[in-house]
């Protein structure tokens, strides 16, 4: 007798279920996807007991014939693709035909569905993966799927689930993504018999105002770009609002919510490193791209997508985001709250947030806020609802309006470190090192693409020896180095001779600067993905005037002029502020002229 056995289908389904259905939120995700695939534009979700007791989704989509309904619970039953080639072009969420079968194997499921053409709806009752009852009754066109007793037959899973509130928070997170991606669909959420919200059909900005909040949206910049064969649109936070913790990041690929590290990094880089390392900008980006460029079929839940060319993805996102930021620049100020501490946007600060209660033994449905949301119909309440389901979004508030600094007035140097200048509204203090770093960083990027930096010939060419490892890097970036103005001859496998250096820069010790640059470049973990940016950073960091270098008045004025010719004059490539403004108002307050 052979040892290998074909698993009975219900067991196979149960195993597959483990991959697709992890927790109530995954059921909600699969069911919403099906409703959207079915062309619904009204979806009502009802949850009880964090989804452990009840998940019900009612849609006004196409519905199924009784015949199809009987099939849909079978594994690999799908109406969405029929041939392998179709996989290349799928635009629907589903295509694996796994979700319903999986859900049915771990819960009691009722499916009630009616196509427009039919007079009656079919009602299927499924228990333990088997259809136990098929009847007909009156019903609306569309589909209603009711999932009860989730994981009743998988105790390990069931025990693994978190509190009702936590599970509900995950469900809300799923809904938030769909609500953002599909403003043209009405979403209603009912929890423990209370209507939490009803998001009417609208356009994207209106939907975002409701979900993300007017406040946060007012600190964003629109993105809209057609390039490299892809269209990308959405919103990013202005550079001056960096999130102390992770900002929320939404990326939709052809309407499908995904997470992707390359894309996130591209956004971060596009800020010209105008936000501190470790901070996450807030963004909502919709990427429309030819399905042949990526594969969503790498994981049953399809949350991860494999791109054919990650570098291309990087460029698409990077350039779109960067372009939208060129138009905006914000100057930090020393206005009183912002100077000392991090201010939290008010969406978080006064109200009791529904999901913060999870640590206390209070049921969500009983909190005052939930009641208020439902009964007052207050617009902000949806924002409050959603703002709590992810980490807190703390916003570092800086000055909001751009103020041109007039450099023609007096300048002087403070401790060979800061340039102080009188401006219309008070005084500006400029950090000379980071200011020069910003100038050189942008100069370097420009040199790569457009205007190479001129080279000053050296009287005494400098010989530099590298380790074989470093030499490989030097060889690799040599073409870029030349654009920066370094004229270098290579000898053997270890040695270079520097014959000319960038004319823009007061270099001095070329050998040290070059070695430092290579080291800095190597230390930048991202030099593979974006060698230009890395090299520009290393170049600017190592060749900029240092804190402690004395400057003449002409040099200071030259520096200020060039700084304001930069795309981002206010933040250095590493995210430190370049200019701080001390307004007359602030001075007046401190001297108690005004209170």
């Amino acid at each position: 007798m052979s040892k290998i056995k074909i698993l009975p289908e219900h067991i196979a389904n149960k195993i597959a279920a483990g991959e697709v259905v992890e927790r109530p939120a995954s059921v909600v995700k699969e069911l919403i996807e099906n409703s959207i695939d079915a062309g619904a534009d009204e979806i009502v979700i009802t949850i009880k007991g964090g989804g452990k007791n009840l998940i019900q989704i009612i849609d006004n989509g196409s519905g199924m014939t009784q015949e199809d309904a009987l099939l849909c619970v079978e594994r690999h039953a799908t109406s969405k693709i029929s041939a392998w080639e179709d996989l290349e072009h799928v635009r629907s969420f589903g295509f694996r035909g796994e979700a319903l079968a999986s859900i049915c194997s771990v819960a009691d499921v009722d499916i009630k569905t009616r196509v427009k053409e039919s007079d009656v709806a079919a009602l299927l009752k499924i228990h333990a993966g088997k259809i136990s009852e098929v009847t007909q009754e009156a019903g609306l066109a569309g589909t209603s799927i009711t999932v009860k007793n989730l994981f009743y037959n998988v105790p390990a899973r069931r025990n693994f689930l978190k509190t009702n509130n936590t599970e509900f928070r995950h469900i809300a997170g799923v809904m938030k993504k769909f609500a953002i991606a599909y403003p043209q669909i009405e979403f209603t959420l009912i929890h423990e018999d209370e209507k939490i919200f009803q998001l009417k059909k609208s356009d994207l900005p209106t939907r975002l105002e409701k979900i993300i909040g007017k406040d946060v949206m007012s600190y964003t910049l629109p993105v809209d770009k057609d390039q490299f064969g892809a269209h990308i649109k959405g919103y990013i936070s202005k550079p001056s609002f960096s999130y102390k913790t992770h900002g929320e990041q939404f990326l939709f690929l052809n309407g499908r919510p995904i997470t992707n590290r390359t894309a996130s990094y591209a956004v971060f880089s596009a800020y010209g490193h105008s936000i501190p390392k470790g901070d996450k900008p807030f963004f909502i980006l919709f990427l429309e791209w030819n399905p042949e460029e990526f594969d969503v079929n790498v994981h049953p839940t399809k949350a991860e997508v494999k791109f054919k060319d990650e570098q291309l993805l990087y460029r698409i996102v990077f350039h779109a985001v960067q372009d939208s930021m060129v138009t905006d620049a914000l100057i930090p100020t020393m206005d009183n709250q912002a100077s000392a501490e991090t201010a939290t946007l008010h969406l978080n600060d006064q109200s009791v947030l529904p999901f913060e209660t999870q640590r206390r033994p209070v049921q969500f449905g009983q909190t005052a806020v939930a009641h208020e949301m439902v009964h007052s119909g207050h617009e902000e309440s949806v924002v409050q609802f959603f703002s709590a389901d992810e980490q807190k979004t703390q916003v570092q508030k800086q000055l909001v309006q751009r103020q041109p600094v007039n450099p023609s007035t007096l300048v002087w140097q403070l401790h060979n470190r800061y340039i102080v200048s009188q401006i219309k509204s008070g005084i500006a203090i400029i950090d000379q090192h980071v200011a020069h770093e910003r100038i050189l960083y942008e100069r370097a990027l420009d040199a790569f693409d457009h205007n190479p930096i001129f080279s000053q010939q050296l009287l005494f060419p400098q010989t530099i020896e590298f380790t074989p490892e470093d030499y490989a890097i030097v060889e690799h970036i040599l073409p870029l180095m030349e654009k920066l103005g370094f004229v270098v001859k290579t000898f053997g496998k270890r040695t270079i001779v520097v014959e000319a250096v960038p004319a823009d820069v007061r270099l001095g010790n070329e050998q040290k600067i070059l070695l430092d640059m290579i080291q800095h470049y190597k230390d930048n973990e991202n030099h593979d993905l974006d060698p230009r940016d890395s090299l520009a950073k290393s170049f600017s960091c190592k060749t900029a005037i240092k804190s402690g270098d004395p400057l003449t008045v002409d040099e200071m004025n030259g520096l200020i002029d060039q700084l304001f010719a930069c795309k981002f004059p206010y933040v250095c490539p590493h995210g430190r502020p370049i200019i701080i403004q001390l307004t007359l108002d602030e001075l007046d307050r401190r001297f108690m002229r005004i209170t």
Partner: protein
Amino acid sequence: MKFIVTQADLSKALVKVISVVPTKTTLPVLGNILMTAKDGFLNLTATDLDVSIMTKISVDVKEPGGITVPSKQFNELVKNLPNIPLEISSDAQYKLLVKCDKGDYRLSGETDDDYPALPVVDEKGILKIDAKVLSRMIGKTSFSVSSDPLRPALTGVLFQVMGSELRLVATDGHRLAKMTYTKFESNIKDTLNVIVPTKALSEVAKENKDVTSINFGQNHIRFDMGDTQVYSRILEETYPDYERVIPSNNDKKMTAETHMLADAFKRVSIFANPITHQVRMGMSKKDLTITAEDMDGGNKGTEKLKVEFEGDDLQIGYNAHLLMSALNNIDTDEVQVHFKGPTSAGIITPSHQVENEHQMMLVMPVRLND
């Protein structure tokens, strides 16, 4: 200590030493000037430990002794007194008293015991040269030194004695200036290379009278100029082999009117990039075209000058500031610039050399990206 001195004599002596007093120092006594009266002379000394200067004037010494006094306040006082005899004395508490006509001034000083002693220069060799010539040589080289602390050797001027030649050389790695002179007395047999910091040299260059004798020691150098001595620490660095990089086969020669050329550069460079000051020189048989363009600003300046040019046409880029500072050190009406190609050094010389002297400057070009 007590002596009588005229205001004019004292003021002149103070001016000589005051510039050596360091503006910032961790050793407060260096902010003072040392005064010692003895044998009919008053010695004034200032030092920053690297460079020291001492000058003496004859005074009427009533009581010999010494004191150090805050240099700034003392100098201000003396400068503003009328030119009359002053009676200057110190008491046991190191108070300095200045008495004259109507005034009576008291200044807190300190004991001269705490003041650092002047270095002893163990004489390896002495060289005597006309003070005016030395001053000129310093002036025409020291402008080319580097200010980069990472290349200490280049922050000073190289004094090189080679047989019958005294050479002064300065370079910052982008340009070089060299002055050679052959009329001097010296007991130096071998060749000798010493790098002297510019701060000391700017004091030496102030002297224009008589003969200066240069005493080369192991670690220090001393310039004896009549009543004044300047001491300086020598920079213990290796000077780069500058001779190797001076080209000898520059076959293209431009001769131009010095002032006309310098003025043209001055005007055109207004339109150059404010950082690189880059200008382009285009030379053909009869003329020179100087162009500057600031790509960011869209500004452009051009001048066409009549010059003499021997050799094939040439386009070469320069930092106008480097060129102008070289031209400003040419005293002859005409200047010659010798070129080879767009990436090799240009050599600038006066149209004719002064007797016993040879002046030359070298400027490295900026590559033109085309």
